[in-house]
């Protein structure tokens, strides 16, 4: 059947509309990047000139560098705690024998759906009561609550093709459970765990509301510092930080894709 002129026109128009929507998604994100190189303190096109002065300003600012340090501390600690918690739970929840798995999964994924302001307020009151408000530990706990569901989702997805008979095979050959885990299971699900860890880091790296509520002046993270900057004065140094945040997120997600892709080829 040859397509009629009408249906070809429809297809052409749809393709055009699709590209408009795709550009609507992509361009605002990309538009930020050149503005960070503007030689004048304006946030509009055309650029007055190209310079690195705002990068220099950010890199030599104790405030921004302190925020970067806080973000890295909190992000890495979040990964170290949320990844094992999520991985262990994922391991049990994907098994058919696990009772109430759907309900448990629904409960454990709640932090993804709850309004983040409500979670932030609840944690603020709770952490204040136990004396952990305005502390790194408090902020890390809060970020783990938000990040663990992402680990859970990506590890359960990576376990979809996993053959649990291998664990019994390992055990029947006399290997201790931990040995089986490290030598049989982990190598196969490592890409899923790594992706989970990456998403856990990005959750913390991008998070602003909880940081706004729970963290004190000593734990100002990059997004929090950026939020304050956006409300006080807009200048290209904020675009520099935005660019850094975009580049790091995109780099990490791309890394996750490569890891999973390579693992899929090996199978």
């Amino acid at each position, binding site marked *: 059947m040859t397509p009629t002129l009408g249906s070809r026109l429809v297809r052409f128009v749809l393709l055009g509309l699709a590209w408009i929507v795709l550009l609507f998604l992509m361009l605002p994100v990309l538009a930020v990047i050149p503005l960070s190189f503007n030689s004048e303190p304006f946030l509009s096109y055309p650029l007055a000139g190209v310079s690195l002065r705002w990068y220099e300003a950010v890199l030599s600012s104790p405030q921004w560098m302190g925020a970067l340090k806080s973000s890295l501390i909190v992000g890495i600690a979040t990964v170290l705690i949320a990844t094992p918690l999520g991985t262990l739970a994922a391991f049990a929840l994907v098994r058919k024998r696990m009772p109430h798995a759907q309900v448990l999964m629904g409960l454990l994924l709640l932090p993804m759906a709850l309004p983040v302001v409500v979670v932030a307020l609840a944690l603020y009151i709770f952490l204040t009561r136990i004396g952990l408000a305005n502390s790194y530990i408090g902020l890390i706990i809060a970020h783990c609550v938000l990040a663990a569901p992402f680990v859970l989702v990506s590890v359960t997805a990576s376990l979809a093709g996993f053959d*649990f008979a291998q664990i019994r095979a390992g055990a029947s050959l006399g290997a201790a459970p931990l040995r089986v885990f490290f030598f049989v299971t982990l190598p196969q699900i490592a890409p899923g765990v790594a992706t989970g860890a990456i998403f856990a880091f990005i959750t913390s790296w991008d998070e602003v509301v909880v940081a706004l509520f729970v963290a004190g002046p000593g734990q100002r993270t990059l997004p929090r510092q950026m939020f304050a900057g956006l409300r006080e004065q807009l200048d290209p140094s904020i675009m520099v930080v935005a660019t850094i945040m975009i580049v790091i997120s995109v780099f990490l997600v791309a890394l996750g894709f490569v890891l999973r892709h390579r693992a899929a080829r090996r199978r």
Partner: protein
Amino acid sequence: MAILSPARMQQARLFGLVVPLLAFMTVFLFVPVGSLLLRAVQDPEIAQLAPNLQREIRTWDGTGMPPEAVVVALRDDLATLQRDRRAAIIAKRAAAIDPAFREMIMSAARLAAAEPQPAPDDLLQAVPKLREPATWAALRGVFAPFTDTYLLATVDHARDPATGAIRAVPSSEAIFIDTLARTLGISLGVTAICLFLAYPLAYVVVRQNRTMQAVMLTFVLLPFWTSILVRSAAWLVLLQTHGVVNDALISMSIISEPLKLVFSRAGTVLAMVHIQLPFTFLPIYSVMKSIPDDYTRAASSLGAQPGYAFRKVYLPLTLPGVAAGCLLTFILCLGYYITPALLGGPSDQMLSYYVAYYLNQNVNWSMAAAVSLVLLLITLAIYVLYVRMVPVLRQTES
């Protein structure tokens, strides 16, 4: 000790793997959120600050003047608080009901702490407002172990201090019904726009070859993994009075004066659509990807026109993806805070804004808790619907 069957043993072992995360979430999410919600109807601080009064006022039925024991309890609690210099906290709570109560509580506290302590009657004589039954009815509301004050406030109602009857607050003070309607309206609008854009987009993307699909998906995923704050900031910059969008429109002579795009509803909705579109798109795309071409081809070989085949065969098959994408987008929209805070004006703020407002500006945790409760109930209702419709977990054999 009971001996478990092997199957039970394995179940117990599996459950053991979930315990760490479940315990973590229980301690750091479920318990904190639960006690937050409790705060909407109960003020734990009052019990701590005025234990005698809270105990005694419960025994009084609230009509006429209270028995002497209640006045004694007020005097004793205020005396203790005055010596600890904490009477102002109670005064602030009472002032939330009636601003004149602040001075009344403070002067009663000063008198109560005097040596020798005044008799209950002397206290009433010295503070005229304490001789009014309406005052005591209001205090009963403040010091009762459970209160509906805050929950009523979230639906723009209050109890009449004199009679205790529930009535609507004056329209000049009514803000919450409007905010709730606005929150639902913006969420619904953003969801509808996202669906309107995502459905045709997904339809086009699944029909491309592999390379083209990868390119198009990059255009969706790269913004998707950029932080919400960065994207809101990008829109703030683009939409400014002398920002990129206004400059472009003026240079193309479409408009002559810059449009007011920031601190407006339009800016807020635009940025929210930008952020939510991938959430709507991805479930629809993955469902469309799983539908074989044969179905619509079979329909057309049986003589169906393309439009008819689409409506009767293809569209119904994609509905699970549409439902998943829309529910997810709607749930996430309900909790928006950062984007309206940066891009919206005062009349574009959603419920989350009031949670933050009562925490940061007008330190009133009970009110923040009551607004949270409303937000949470709506979210949970839709989340339950979502979890029942969309399997959140795929399990494996063995």
